[in-house]
């Protein structure tokens, strides 16, 4: 048992940290620190910076551009990325469709898509959820019917993150209407410029437009755009969703949030002293810091076990990471809200003059509102508790 990083890992952390600090546009870093939205260009530029360095897709097999890092190093890389803070990699390409393509796709697909994902030449989005499906993903209704050399796709997807920027979407479509729920689903890649696709933005309560509905109306897709075998899409989706939980705890991001809370609470006055000197506030913050430390260690236990014993199936205990990770992220948005006091009220739409440097307060309430999502998406915390009860405790 050895709970510390070895010297090589410590040096690696330093290298990563230095590179991030030096290579990231300070304007983008500041946007992230202050909770403002980043632009499409911000993300693309950063991904290309990483790609130039060879760090675009560290977790991929080396033959497709991966770095071959140990689990510990990958953990350090992501934690430092979040702590910088640098833009998190858009997961739909590098974490979702990329691994599906190099694991189940054909040579043609690998050759064409993988380098473009690493360099973000294509912006990907995810077509899984549907209005009626929610946690019951397998109840999806979007269909793809074979017609000659093509699929004809009809239906509707929802919660499609950043679809407004997307070049491609990977979709689960029902290809065998007679099969049972999980059977008869295929995994299909669709060009977002295809005729018959409509994107409708869903405005979220923070005032942003992060998610969309995507409608498919007799969309014609080349037959070759299916990944793997017909009607086996559910297996690929399960594989993909297993990867989704990677670093779902977001420890690095929460550390950066704590730094920010301390910074702001050192600035905001409560009576004749800065708020940070109020013992009650400090104790609340310390309590959350302790929970975060416990989460970090728990995350490291999962990472170390994967590093030693291989990945295999996702560890059901990793549901802890999702539950505690989301709870801590939400608590930190509540503490930020508390810091803000009466200045939580002003609303400043992106692009408004207020939403600029010096306006530290206006993104905070929207951040609090928006982060209610983290206990809902990616399998709600209720679902995660079901998983622990059933898969871990055998109830």
């Amino acid at each position, binding site marked *: 048992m050895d709970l510390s990083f070895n010297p090589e890992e410590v040096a690696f952390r330093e290298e990563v940290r230095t590179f991030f600090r030096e290579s990231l546009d300070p304007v983008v870093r500041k946007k992230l620190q202050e909770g403002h939205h980043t632009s499409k260009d911000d993300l693309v530029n950063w991904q290309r910076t990483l790609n130039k360095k060879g760090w675009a897709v560290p977790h991929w097999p080396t033959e497709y551009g991966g770095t071959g890092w140990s689990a510990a190093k990958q953990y350090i890389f992501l934690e430092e990325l979040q702590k910088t803070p640098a833009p998190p990699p858009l997961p739909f390409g590098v974490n979702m469709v990329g691994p599906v393509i190099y694991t189940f796709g054909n040579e043609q697909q690998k050759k064409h898509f993988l380098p473009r994902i690493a360099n973000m030449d294509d912006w990907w989005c995810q077509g899984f*959820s549907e209005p*009626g499906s*929610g*946690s*019951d993903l397998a*109840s999806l209704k979007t269909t793809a019917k074979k017609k000659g050399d093509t699929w004809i796709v009809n239906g509707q997807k*929802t*919660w499609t993150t950043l679809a407004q920027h997307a070049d491609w979407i990977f979709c689960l479509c029902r290809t065998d209407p007679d099969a049972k729920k999980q059977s008869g689903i295929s995994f299909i890649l669709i060009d977002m410029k295809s005729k018959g696709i409509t994107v409708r933005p*869903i*405005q*979220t*309560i923070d005032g942003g437009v992060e*998610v969309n509905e995507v409608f498919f109306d007799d969309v014609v897709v080349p037959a070759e755009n299916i990944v793997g075998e017909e009607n086996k899409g559910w297996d690929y989706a399960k594989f993909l969703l297993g990867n989704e939980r990677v670093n779902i705890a977001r420890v690095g991001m929460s550390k950066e949030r704590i730094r920010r809370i301390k910074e702001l609470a050192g600035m*905001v*006055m*409560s*009576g*004749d002293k800065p*708020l940070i000197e109020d013992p*009650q*506030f400090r104790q609340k913050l310390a309590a959350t810091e302790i929970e975060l430390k416990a989460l970090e260690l728990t995350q490291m236990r999962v990472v170390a076990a994967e590093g030693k014993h291989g990945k295999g199936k996702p560890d059901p205990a990793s549901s802890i990471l999702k539950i505690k990770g989301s709870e801590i992220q939400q608590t930190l948005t*509540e503490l930020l*809200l*508390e810091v*803000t*006091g*009466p*200045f*939580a*009220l*002003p*609303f*400043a*739409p992106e692009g*408004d003059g*207020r939403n600029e440097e010096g306006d530290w307060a206006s993104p905070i*309430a*929207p951040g*609090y*509102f*928006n982060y*209610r*999502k983290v*206990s*809902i*998406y990616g399998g*709600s915390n*209720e679902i995660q*508790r079901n998983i622990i009860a059933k898969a871990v405790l055998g109830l």
Partner: protein
Amino acid sequence: MDFDLSEEQRLLKDSVDGLLKASYDFETRKKYRAEKGGWSKDVWGKFAEQGLLGLPFSEDDGGFGAGPIETMIVMEALGRNLVVEPYLDTVVLGGGVLRRASAEQRAAHLPGIIDGSKTMAFAQVERDSRYDLGDIKTSAKKSGAGYTLSGEKFVVGHGDTADTLIVTARTAGGQRDAKGVGVFLVPANAKGVDIHGYETQDGSRAADIKLNNVEVGADAVIGDADNGLSLVNQVADDARIALCAEAVGAMEEALKVSVEYIKERKQFGVAIGSFQALQHRAADMFTALETARSMSFLASMASSFTDLDERAKTVAAAKVQIGRSARFVGQGGVQLHGGVGVTMEYRIGHYFKRLTMIEQQFGDADFHLRRVAQAGGITE
């Protein structure tokens, strides 16, 4: 001991509910928010017609002489319907100050409030004041018979559409001294008043206001220009009492739409409301609502306490309970809705946002908890 409404109170409730039912559905509300100033003159006119704007004023002043329970009834209804019109700012805060003003001041201002032609705003928050009502840098310097006001006020509810601003300013003493606080009536169009209005997170409006050597006459002072802090505290407590009632209305509706949603929404072939974890969350929300309602009743009752320390402590306790319940019900409602809960398209998100902002107005739960603790608790 009787928690039932009187016959008149029930009629009032029915008439407010009827008015809002007829004119304030979810889509119409959007239109009101899009009007100039961010609220509906038309709805305001109807409030005046039904006498809601004159409710708490004495009959001598042209009002209806109603008590705190009547205000509670109205505020609950406003909360249920997420009303964005400036009732709190004009009738509760502005009216609260004026009710304690001189006969001349009442005669000058109340008729305009009661007939709906004038609105008011309470300019109190400063950059570093947080929730401390006596932490004031804005200065009021004696100038002839009147005063010259200079300083900055922030997050003034409906400050961009008000005709008259009520401004707290320091006539003497240091930034946090209890003595030396004055309360002034300032016409919004007075020279040197610079108003920057904006939307708030909950779909209402507020403004940041600069006062650049604004001259006001002797008749602008409410009460004693050196001893106004008690007035400010009383009026802030009026607002807290009203906010408690508004929050109860909003929570009631937030719970209702959430329960309706989980009854209808199906997953895995059954209504998600059949899952025990969601049922228990809803049950806990009901408990949070009802305990908040009890404390809102108590706060409204405390409105007529003559012991102002006891009044303040009771209202602080109510605001703690309301703050905690509001957070639990708001967050719980969103969680029960799942993904659609974080969109603008369902009502729950709007209740959640309003409830969150109520928490932040006139002191959050921790601020008031500290006050109750410092006062030695509230168990007799």
